[in-house]
């Protein structure tokens, strides 16, 4: 029984990580089709911002939100200075954001040094039979579901969400209907950045903040969003569920390395059989 609970926890924990790191990318890459190679560094900035806030005495939970907002604002600045000139130019975007990524890693290393900055995980652990499960891990699972629900509600039920979805579907028609396309793109990019910054902050108590933090997650995030296919939210959820189940079970039975390898292997198989991703054959609106 406690074995089963342990597996469920591992899967849930892995799911929360997949969801948190890919949701921002699902917006920026999935919806906007901007290949942002600096996405991992947005995660890292969120982690640093959260650490600085927490070290300044701000409660950790509030630091998460502040970090999300700060990276959101940073994303808007990046969009205005860099991305807005490059919509539709995939190779150029790739190079520009790669440069940005190098700049951010170098800049943060120069300012804060390469060492890991720290905030300890609050809340301790709960014993389940033989296993101690960190309460913070359970909180992360809860946060992941909450963020998912919030993002869904935001896109589905707000006027802004409707405008964004419309604009992404057909920018020209939206513009003809009086939508300020440039503003919508800017805010959407900022929203995706905010989700990423928030994710970085939530990861801090388990991984800490260090300049190359993003590199470890960027590939996973892209694989999740690409495997998810063209429906960003549903795709990301299904891909995350699949990968976290594999990662959680295989990673626990054998080793973390084999777990990650299996995820990559399944992703390759998946994209071979469903080149458009899991949601490739679904149509919008389903």
């Amino acid at each position: 029984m406690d074995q089963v609970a342990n597996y469920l926890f591992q899967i849930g924990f892995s799911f929360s990580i997949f969801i948190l790191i890919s949701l921002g990318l699902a917006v920026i890459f999935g919806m906007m089709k901007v290949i942002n190679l600096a996405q991992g560094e947005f995660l890292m900035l969120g982690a640093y911002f959260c650490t600085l806030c927490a070290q300044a005495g701000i409660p950790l939970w509030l630091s998460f939100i502040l970090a999300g907002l700060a990276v959101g604002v940073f994303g808007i600045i990046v969009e205005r200075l860099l991305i807005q000139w490059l919509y539709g130019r995939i190779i150029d975007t790739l190079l520009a954001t790669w440069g940005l990524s190098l700049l951010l890693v170098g800049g943060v290393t120069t300012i804060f040094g390469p060492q890991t900055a720290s905030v300890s995980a609050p809340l301790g652990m709960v014993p389940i039979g033989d296993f101690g499960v960190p309460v913070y891990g359970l909180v992360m699972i809860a946060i992941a579901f909450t963020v998912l629900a919030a993002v869904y509600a935001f896109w589905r039920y707000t006027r802004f969400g409707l405008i964004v979805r419309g604009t992404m579907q057909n920018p020209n028609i939206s513009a003809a209907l009086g939508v300020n396309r440039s503003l919508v793109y800017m805010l959407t990019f900022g929203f995706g950045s905010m989700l990423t910054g928030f994710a970085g902050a939530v990861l801090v108590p388990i991984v800490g903040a260090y300049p190359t933090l993003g590199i470890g997650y960027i590939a996973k995030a892209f694989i999740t969003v690409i495997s998810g296919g063209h429906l960003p939210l549903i795709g990301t959820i299904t891909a995350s569920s699949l990968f976290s189940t594999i990662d959680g079970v295989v990673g626990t039975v054998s080793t973390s390395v084999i777990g990650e390898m299996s995820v990559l292997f399944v992703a390759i198989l998946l994209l071979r059989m469903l080149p458009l991703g899991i949601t490739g054959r679904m149509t919008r609106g389903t």
Partner: protein
Amino acid sequence: MKLNRRQFFKAGSGALAFASMPYLLKSAGIASEKPIKVGSILDKTGILNIYSLKQIQASAMAVDEINAAGGLLGRPLELVFYDSQSDGQYNSQYVTEALLKDKVDVVHGGITSSSREVMRPIVSRFKGLLFYNSLYEGGVCDRRHVSTGMVPAQQLEPLMDYVVKELGQKRVYILAADYNYGHITAKWMQKFARERGGEDLAVEFFPLDVTNFQPAISRIQAAKPDVVLSALVGGAHIAFYRQFESSIGKANMMLASGSYGVGLEHTQLSPEEGNGIILATSYVDDLQTAEAKDFVSRFHNYTGDTGYVGEYGEYGERGIKLWAEAVRQAGDSSPDAVIAALSKGTVSVVGAGGRYTVDGKTNHTVMDIHIVKGNMNRRFDMIRSFEQRQPSDTQAVCDLHANPDDTTQYEPEV
């Protein structure tokens, strides 16, 4: 007295010669006061600079102190620093520049094994001398290379003596970084644990970018070892210490390591996360010896930085001191003379961590190993010292007296 012209010139030139004697003597003496050049190649910038920053300062301090005390063989030392920027490409570029253009007598530097392996063939080709001041996996057998840091057998035997034999923590679970250092270290941990009646339940390796240790922690919880041994390395792996404390806890299971602390991990973790971890090391700031206290206060005065110095900082002074002693014994700073002096096995100094002696057969260093335990002040409490531990893993495979031209890095048989 009346001088004719010829007498005037005679007397005059004599007087001139006499008057200019101090100047002539001084200009003749310039040769013996020409500085001895010391190259230092470390990562001042880039992602690995955490291991180098204090070492750069400690080396500079050691050189300045030698100069303040009158130099070496009557000549001042000149430190030439090169920033290798955490990139092996610069190690090879700068070591070539140091040996050929700046003509240094010795190169101190390299942090990672890969940076050392980039430099070693170049140092051999141009007949230089390399002091590698870092802990590493052992086995380098090269007379132009001197290792002043710990090697696994030297460090882990005392650790396992203490943990398995003295404390009776027999069931061990090993976690290690997934590269050369981690694999070799894990093998020695298994060997020493078994030899002391212990049982190694599992060995797991983690690539350097792994941050999610939850699955490993649940396997540890299922296996129920007495002690978890860590040979994890680098910024990402710090996450393990954090996740271990928030799930199992050192109150319930012992955690020991040979690599913790070298990247100043304990200054980046919370007091609870670092408290109680057991470590085998050749130097921590908290050693209660006069030499250690003296080193820390000199370092603080020299740099104005009153933070924790740590093992990699101390290696900077250790390397310079050992090399300087070898130069004194050789009476000559040229690489070949220093290498000849080193091979006698008499080069020995007392430094901040105790006595260091270069073993002439392997060019590795005999040193004290201290078992310490993390405390709630983000520092260490001394438990006990194992004196003058031999680099036995490298000694088993390397004999520079018999094969002076050897340049192999052996993988010690475990």
